[in-house]
């Protein structure tokens, strides 16, 4: 057994690397099983970050701690779908287990994370380490973009990727002017697939035109939204598509360095990405990309929190302006793009803007990955044309259990709140969903049939937002807590009218005043609960 590395060796290994704090914290945590005071003192001195700040940041993240033996404790997913599958029992059965927020495997049995091992299983089962499920074949044979090649054998290896057409788009892009690349993307209509929907070409052009440097790329792979597991399938089964997309982004923006910020809960994915980076070295000539593993924080999916986290700062969202395109990573012009967005780039360049735009229905352009889970026969990732009818996806593609009716589905994971049975004739695009008071976001949909207690699901959802609220802005920090209290053990008024008035007032302040998307969208849960299930709300309050 090799001797464990000294403090000095670890510091020396990382201190001159870009974005060193997270990997250094993980290295000490791996060595000792927790982050001791001595370790943090060494890190503080080595990276010249004040000790109180390092300690404060450690306490912010879910998966690192100064408590001895904290690293190896099993963590059991408490996402809404896993609870339906018995995760509370599993939590109870496993020695020393702790709950964790949705770990992004809603198409699997219950995920259990133990240090670097991502296991799955159900109560009573032996836990197993299994690869991410491949997406079900596209049921209607509709043409795909991101998932088109993902089911090809060996696609995750560089040789397999190249054999199935990989890196051809990058070679093509190297012969193009940056402006030509941007024009293709602009014409394709590609927009941010992490949920914000900002036009990708506009973002890249802003980075290219920004003063200063070096310019930076960040692939946002911090897929933390409950019910979303679409980035995982791409990262695990088509990692080179993401690297190719990043390299093309580099050519278009002038950036040569980049980070993939990966959520902590995907440990196998980190190994896959690191292998892909090694194998793709010759293709990625001129670029320096590296993987940085998060430490457990939903808010780090928000791009400015992510940047603070990468920089080793307290991961609060930043105030905007200035925007990351001019003042991003270490104040350099930075393009932060979602995994799915980047995975769409090479196919667009390869097959043309018109091809991609034409994949959407009607006036909508392109496709969207939807992570569908919950009370459906065939959960999984589906790539749909933008503007696709929800009912077709739900009833024809995924299927609803025999004899059951869907009483609600979530949108944007949890952030879009619930749509009820009467709302199901929507099409999956922002215009249609926003008209219903919701939004598509990152594309997570969880279905709940008539067996489910929607008040309880709403409580769990709000509990998630409260536990992930960063604590920076008042409406979100206090509001999420107050809403959880009102949905749980009653501490507010029990008269339904007074209860509703309070919940609405809190929600309105959060929606209007919160500093970032978490606090702005969390009240969609209570708003849609009140809209769709007023009788259940009254019943709950009366029953207490």
């Amino acid at each position, binding site marked *: 057994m090799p001797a464990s590395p000294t403090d000095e060796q670890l510091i020396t290994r990382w201190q001159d690397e870009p974005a060193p704090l997270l990997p250094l914290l993980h290295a000490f945590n791996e060595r000792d099983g927790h982050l001791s*005071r001595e370790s*943090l003192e060494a890190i503080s001195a080595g990276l010249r970050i*004040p*000790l*109180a*700040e*390092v*300690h*404060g940041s450690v*306490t*912010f993240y879910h998966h690192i701690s*100064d408590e001895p033996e904290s690293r190896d404790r099993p963590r059991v997913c408490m996402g809404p779908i896993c609870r339906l599958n018995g995760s509370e029992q599993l939590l109870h059965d496993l020695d020393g287990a702790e709950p964790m927020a949705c770990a992004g495997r809603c198409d699997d049995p219950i995920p259990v994370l133990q240090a670097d091992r991502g296991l799955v299983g159900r109560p009573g089962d032996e836990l197993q380490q299994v690869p991410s499920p491949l997406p079900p074949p596209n049921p209607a044979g509709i043409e795909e973009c991101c998932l088109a090649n993902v089911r090809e054998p060996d696609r995750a290896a560089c040789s397999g990727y190249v054999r199935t057409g990989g890196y051809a788009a990058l070679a093509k892009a190297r012969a193009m002017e940056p402006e030509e690349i941007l024009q293709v993307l602009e014409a394709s209509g590609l927009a941010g697939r992490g949920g914000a929907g900002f036009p990708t070409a506009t973002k890249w052009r802003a980075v290219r035109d920004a003063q200063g440097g070096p310019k930076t790329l960040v692939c946002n792979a911090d897929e933390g939204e409950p019910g979303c597991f679409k980035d995982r399938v791409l990262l695990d089964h088509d990692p080179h598509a993401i690297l190719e997309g990043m390299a093309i982004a580099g050519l278009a923006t002038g950036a040569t360095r980049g980070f993939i910020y990966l959520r902590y809960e995907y440990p196998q994915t980190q190994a896959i990405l690191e292998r892909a980076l090694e194998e793709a070295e010759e293709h990625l000539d001129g670029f320096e990309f590296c993987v940085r593993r998060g430490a457990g*924080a939903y808010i780090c999916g928000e791009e400015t929190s992510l940047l603070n986290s990468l920089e080793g700062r*307290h991961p609060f969202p930043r*105030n905007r*302006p200035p925007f990351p395109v001019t003042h991003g990573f270490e104040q350099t012009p930075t393009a932060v793009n979602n995994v799915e967005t980047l995975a769409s780039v090479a196919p667009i360049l390869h097959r043309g803007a018109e091809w991609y735009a034409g994949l959407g229905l009607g006036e909508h352009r392109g496709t969207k990955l939807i992570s569908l889970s919950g009370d459906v026969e065939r959960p999984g990732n589906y790539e749909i044309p933008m503007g696709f009818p929800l009912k077709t996806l739900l009833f024809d593609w995924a299927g609803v259990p025999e004899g059951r009716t869907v009483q609600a589905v979530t949108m944007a994971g949890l952030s879009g709140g619930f749509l009820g049975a009467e709302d199901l004739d929507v099409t999956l695009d922002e215009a249609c969903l926003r008209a219903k008071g919701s939004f598509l976001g990152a594309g997570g949909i969880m279905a709940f049939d008539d067996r489910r207690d929607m008040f309880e699901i709403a409580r769990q959802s709000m509990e998630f937002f*409260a*536990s*992930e*609220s*960063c*604590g*920076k*802005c*008042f*409406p979100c*920090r*206090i*509001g*999420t*807590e*107050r809403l959880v*209290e009102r949905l749980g053990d009653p*501490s*507010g008024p029990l008269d339904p009218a007074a209860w509703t008035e*309070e919940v609405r*007032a*809190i929600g*309105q*302040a959060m929606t*209007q*005043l*919160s*500093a970032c998307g978490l606090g702005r969208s969390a009240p969609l849960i209570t708003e849609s609960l009140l809209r769709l299930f007023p009788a259940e709300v009254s019943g709950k309050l009366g029953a207490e």
Partner: protein
Amino acid sequence: MSLDLTLDGQVVPFQEGETLYEVAHRHGDKIPTLCYDKRLKPLGACRLCVVEVEGANGPLASCTTPAREGMVVRTVTEDLEQHRKTLVDLVLSENPKGAEITPLRGLASQELAQLSVRYGSDGTRFAGATSGHPRLDDPNPMILRDYEHCISCYRCVRVCAEQEGDYAISITGRGFGTRISAEFDVDLQDSDCTFCGQCVQTCPTGALGDQLALQYTDLPEPINATRSICPYCGVGCSVDLLTKGETLVGVQPAMDGPANEGALCIKGQFAWEWVQHPDRLKEPLVRKDGELVPASWEEALDRAAAGFAQTAARHGRQSIYAVASGRAPHESAYSVQKFIRVNFGSNQIDNCSRA
């Protein structure tokens, strides 16, 4: 070219780089805030300073929004005031005692109390769990850490980092469980804290309090503030001396002090109890038969002069050595060296700041 925007119906000029809050404040608007301290980088946490800007998608925090040419801004509308009331109600719900705080706790300690009056909030609406974790057990005699009143505005953390450069405290945990602590929650005396007291003075709720001043809470007289200059060193920090009747009960930094802008050090902030300490020297004492006894100034100065002369005669002029006080301004320091050089012919002069 001058830049203008419309503020509550009035066209007003502004400078490039100003925020909407700064522009509005300059024009007399009383936009409420809790996380704002003009010396610190705006954080945009409390959201009370929200304003409506035509064309914007919802209210914007004025403290973090740069003013732009042609903006049409409203700082008081029915919607905004309703939002602000909801926010103040939420804040008071986690800090119901925030409305009754003695001003002895600190300079900014009344900010939340004043907002609770302005918005008629008493902490009963939205009642629920409270978030504070008091550290009343911190043994330091200067800074009271009564976090039951903490509202997580982070002014203390920011002033410690941005103004004092100590980085002694930081934000731990997250969300409603957020706390303010030194590393590993150690006592302040075991952290990098220098007890400058700036966290106390910027705290808008009195969660951080001046323990020395609080000893005088029960004195019945009203608090009176007298502007003065800190006597400790040559910087000349402006202070307000707080008195109740004839008793000095505290020192607060002056935000408009040109030399200090609200800053003080441990001495200026907390080392004032000597003023009314029974051991304080109030008249000359001379030693007679081994006992110190009161004497006139004339007698005392004669004794001192005789002592110096005798020492110089016996041991030579180089035996006289002067150490000037670091509290002395230039003019006094000059006088000291002149006195020693001219009167004793000694060049042995130093200053206590070198120690």
